[in-house]
């Protein structure tokens, strides 16, 4: 894991992005989290406990699967899927939750709080809270508790209390606001398990490090089967946790193209979009300087995507930096394209993937045919799609009883 230079305040930044723009009430606690993270991130006992849980509880390493049918159907580059959907709890979120919860445990915390969009991070947090015998409270926008009822019940089943958030546009952004507010009320016994690569330092750093297991594994796996690195890595981006994990180990390999797929909603040129990097501008919100969808007055826009996990008006500071420096490219995928991909990968590969991940799959469908057959794409399937089946059916005009 990357060494931080603690004396230099710029180490909290990725280029011009990052920082700690958070109320004073939380600063002492945030510094305690930073200190604890610095203390344990290279500690052998900590890393061993993390590895055991990742392997024996979360089902790692996740498979790197050669999608033969899709490769042949699209007629271009070889397509591999990094199967984070096969993790325990059904998404990449568990990788980071185990890491942060182990830090929380070492800090003596007994209560975990978290925001969630689609519910995957909430489920992962509730799961680890159950495993560690910790209290757990999850904040989720009312829009999302309505469209992801199954995950709400899952969290409750695991012993968590779920708070529907009714302020603002009642989605992920508002859930983050509510969790930050809840944290300012009670810090002594409470750890905020932030699920995306966003927020004040050290959260983007922790999420980067704990999710980088995705690319550490995929790099070794692709070297084992192909004897070389991929040409392109593709992942979906909301706040950017699975994408940063998928990119991390390749950032220094300049020949590996990195592509993040944002939710364009009804189109990047409409006001019903969540394509932050394509449409956003520099701002300061949710603890970080980064790119945001906002108006000229600095008010944060309401955003929209069919995917509850991607409709976030900002993006992690490291992604903003990768975008500005052109190390990674970011593209918008519409609802329609994502839903088509949801059906395509189901029929072609027999995989029902999360609607979030299907934004990446949709881009692979466009990209693969333009590449020659000796090229290799790794696409991260960040989660499984069981949670989305009912809403996709509805999108297609079918009403199914949950």
């Amino acid at each position, binding site marked *: 894991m990357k060494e931080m230079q603690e004396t230099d*305040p710029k180490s909290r930044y990725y280029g011009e992005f990052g*920082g*700690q*723009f*958070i*109320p*004073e*009430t*939380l*600063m*002492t*606690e945030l510094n305690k989290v930073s200190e604890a993270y610095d203390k344990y991130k290279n500690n052998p006992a900590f890393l061993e406990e993390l590895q055991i849980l990742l392997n024996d509880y979360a089902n790692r390493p996740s498979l790197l699967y050669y999608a033969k049918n899709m490769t042949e159907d699209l007629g271009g580059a070889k397509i591999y899927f990094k199967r984070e959907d096969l993790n325990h709890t059904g998404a990449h979120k568990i990788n980071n939750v185990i890491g942060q919860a182990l830090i929380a445990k070492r800090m003596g915390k007994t209560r975990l709080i978290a925001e969630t969009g689609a519910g995957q991070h909430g489920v992962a947090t509730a799961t680890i809270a159950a495993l560690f015998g910790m209290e757990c409270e999850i904040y989720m926008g009312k829009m999302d508790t309505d469209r992801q009822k199954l995950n709400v019940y899952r969290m409750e089943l695991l012993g968590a209390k779920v708070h529907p958030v009714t*302020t*603002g546009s009642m989605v992920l*952004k*508002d859930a983050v*606001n509510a969790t*930050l*507010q809840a944290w*300012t*009320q*009670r*810090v002594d016994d409470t750890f905020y398990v932030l699920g995306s690569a966003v927020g004040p330092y050290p959260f983007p750093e922790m999420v980067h490090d704990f999710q980088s297991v995705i690319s550490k594994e995929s790099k070794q796996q692709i070297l084992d089967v192909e004897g070389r690195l991929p040409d392109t890595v593709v992942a979906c981006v909301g706040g950017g946790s699975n994408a940063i994990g998928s990119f991390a180990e390749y950032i220094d390999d300049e020949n590996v193209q990195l592509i993040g797929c944002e939710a364009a909603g009804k189109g990047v040129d409409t006001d019903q979009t969540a394509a932050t990097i394509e449409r956003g501008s520099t*701002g*300061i*919100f*949710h*603890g970080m300087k980064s790119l*945001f969808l*906002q108006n*000229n*007055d*600095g*008010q*944060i826009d309401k955003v929209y995507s069919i995917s509850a996990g991607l409709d976030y008006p900002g993006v992690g500071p490291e992604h903003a930096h990768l975008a500005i420096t052109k190390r990674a490219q970011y593209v918008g995928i519409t609802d329609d394209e994502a839903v088509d991909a949801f059906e395509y990968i189901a029929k072609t590969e027999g995989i029902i993937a999360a609607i979030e991940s299907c934004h990446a799959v949709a881009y692979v469908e466009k990209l693969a045919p333009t590449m020659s057959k000796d090229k290799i794409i790794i696409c991260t399937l960040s989660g499984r799609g069981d949670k989305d089946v009912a809403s996709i059916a509805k999108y297609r005009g079918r009403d199914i009883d949950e």
Partner: protein
Amino acid sequence: MNKLQKIFENKKVFIPFVVANDPDFNTTVQNVLTLADNGADIVELGIPFSDPVADGPVIQAADLRAFEAGVNVNVVFDIVEKVRESTNVPIVFLTYTNIAFKFGYEAFCKKCHELNISGLVIPDLPLEEQGDLKKYTDQYDISLIQLVAPTSDERITKIAKAAQGFIYMVSSMGVTGKREDFSNELSPTIKRIKEVTDVPVAIGFGIHSVQQAQDLSGLADGIIIGSAVVELVNKGEDLAKYANEISAAI
């Protein structure tokens, strides 16, 4: 001596807060004038933000009413300009970092200077991140108000050393809004502040009753009342009477 700090010289200072443009332009202008005429020593004026993470439900609702009435940063500046036709009451803005950042830190501070704004309270801009803005608050003679929280602990000294105008002592954990109990850390924290600076301390967050105002003003140099005033504005109740009562009690 700093012009805000001077206000605290011989008295306990009362700082009421209203949200700009809640519920509309003229009412806000009138409310600021009423407060200034009835015992307010400094008026804190909120520039609404879409996602006010430090604020509780009362101020969030006020922000929404202000947006409903078409507020933006320029409208707030116009409100102050109108107020300035009648009074020179010291005004500080409360807003969030992104509002000033997006306007441009220099342009924002220049405009504040033109409107005779004395200070800025920005709850999501902790000491470590103030550098870029501080350059311009200094240049345009505006106090960047430091907040100290019950959890500030080892940070108190360095925050107090950087303070200008007054220090905003956050009375308790959580967000803005009425409360009955305040942190036990208030007295010891203020004592630690006083060990390193002469900059006065005003307590805010949660104060609503006259009794609380009286008790807490005994611990500090002034008090800030936000949600309770905003609630009176919302209900259309008598601001002058409330301001006079508080002002007389402290």
